[in-house]
């Protein structure tokens, strides 16, 4: 059974729909990467999945149960977590407080999870008492991902985690995404760095104009001359 499955999802911001029937299916061990041109509905897909915009048609199943149009405060407790592309840290809160907020829904001891996030991103441990707003872009992204991991998700949604980062940080973030996946968390991410991301994706989805254009393993999409020509810049 897929961990999450979107079937013929139609969604938008109230006006004309942005998604016109998107199908996506991810297993618990997958890293799914959504690529496509600007305005294709990549971020919108994640937002529809996470209940941030309303789905008018189609359905979303998570672990076999229907979660279409469920609000985040219901989704986080059942194992979904979302890292938005922008404004994804609480700038006036310290790094540690940011992480604690990710664990808001938990009432048990969070110190172990906190430790594992600090192990994953050592710079954060050093700066744990600093306001997150004072950190560099790459470190902020670490805080954002760390925050999302604090609820111990089974599915992590990442909206362009490499946006605006220097190449060094892009590599580091991607390496951590692979590690997070190896620890048993399904990943669904949107990426502009399509070639780099598809290289480690077990599933790739090319969206255009709110519809699926191609799907396959990351390798298959990279090797497909038509995908390469139209969507990966030749």
């Amino acid at each position, binding site marked *: 059974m897929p961990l999450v499955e979107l079937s013929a999802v139609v969604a938008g911001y109230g006006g004309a729909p942005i998604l016109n029937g998107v199908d996506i299916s991810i297993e618990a061990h997958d890293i799914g990467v959504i690529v496509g041109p600007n305005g294709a509905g990549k971020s919108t897909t994640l937002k529809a999945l996470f209940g941030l915009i309303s789905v008018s048609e189609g359905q979303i199943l998570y672990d076999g149960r229907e979660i279409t149009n469920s609000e985040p*405060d219901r989704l986080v*407790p059942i194992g979904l977590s979302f890292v938005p592309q922008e404004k994804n*840290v*609480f700038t*006036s809160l310290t790094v540690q*407080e940011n992480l604690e*907020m990710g664990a808001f829904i938990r009432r048990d001891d969070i110190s172990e999870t906190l430790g594992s996030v600090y192990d994953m991103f050592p710079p954060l441990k050093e700066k744990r008492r600093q306001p997150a707003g004072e950190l560099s872009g790459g470190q902020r992204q670490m805080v954002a991902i760390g*925050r999302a991991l604090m609820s111990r998700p089974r599915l992590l949604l990442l909206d362009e985690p490499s946006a605006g980062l220097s190449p060094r940080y892009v590599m580091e973030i991607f390496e951590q995404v692979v590690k997070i996946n190896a620890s048993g968390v399904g990943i669904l991410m949107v990426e502009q760095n399509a070639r780099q991301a598809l290289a480690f994706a077990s599933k790739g989805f090319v969206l255009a104009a709110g519809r699926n254009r191609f799907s396959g393993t990351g390798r298959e999409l990279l090797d497909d001359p038509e995908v390469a020509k139209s969507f990966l810049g030749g």
Partner: protein
Amino acid sequence: MNEFIFFVDKVLIAGAVLGSIYALSAIGVTLIFGILRFAHFAHGDMMTMGAFVAFILASLASAAGLHAGLPMGFLLLPFAMAITAGLALLIDKSFYAPLRARGAKPVTLLIASIGVTLMIQGLIRLFAGVQSRSFFETEPKTVYRIAVPFGGATRPIVITEPEVLMILATIVIVIALHLFLTRSRLGKAMRAMADNADLARVSGINTQLVVRVTWLIAGALACMGGTMLALDVSLKPDLAFNIVLPIFAAAIVGGLGQAYGAIAGGYLVGFAETLAVFNWSVLLQPLQRVLPASIQLPADLSIVPTEYKLTVAFVILIIVLLVRPTGIFKGAST
């Protein structure tokens, strides 16, 4: 020396009392703005309402023959705060929450809060009448006269018991609020939501709960500020409505959404007001002895006449906004 004691009485003590009242109320205004993104105009009347709740409780207690060493209005304050917090929650549920559920803009909520202002004032006038009342009708107001044994002073420093109690209580409340905001899970969630409401929602923070806690705190502190004001002067239906503008000035000066800013802004405005209406001629009187007889110091050297005290808050507001548009502590600009 007597002149200096006059200064202590009129500026330092009066400023600390006024600043405490402004700080307590501005915290509520700034928290509501941070969480719900609208200017809660009815905050002054929530304070008056809280003072009336405290007054009713104190009257009931003294009617029942209860007496204590401290002013009844102060002793029963925790109960009055709890009741006012509940009323604040009720007001939110009845008037603001339905508007929020429909996605009303902040300006709509602001106008609704003006309606709530009129409603609370009307209800108070309807049930309690329009006259001024005093918390000290059935018990004496203790006044401390602290003799200053040096400098040849003949005047004592005068401070009333409610003033002492209220300044101390404000300090306790500010420390408690600080611990709540920095140590507790809900307090941190409150700061998180004020910082970035969308991300708070995405993180799975129960935003409804945070909103409720915000109203509870704002209501309780409004009751405290209002009761303090009523203990210091007298209780009337437009008690705190008259100071809602300096309260907003304090919140904005401190940086909207910043609880610490509201405290700083409250004391800044409070002390500035007492400094501005202080008759500086009194302090300069000793100079008269060394000055030639042809130069006479004017009898009144206050910066602003008492009637124009309210303008002081706005002068500070304008200066701060010119120099630091987001307030002393960097606040929200929207």
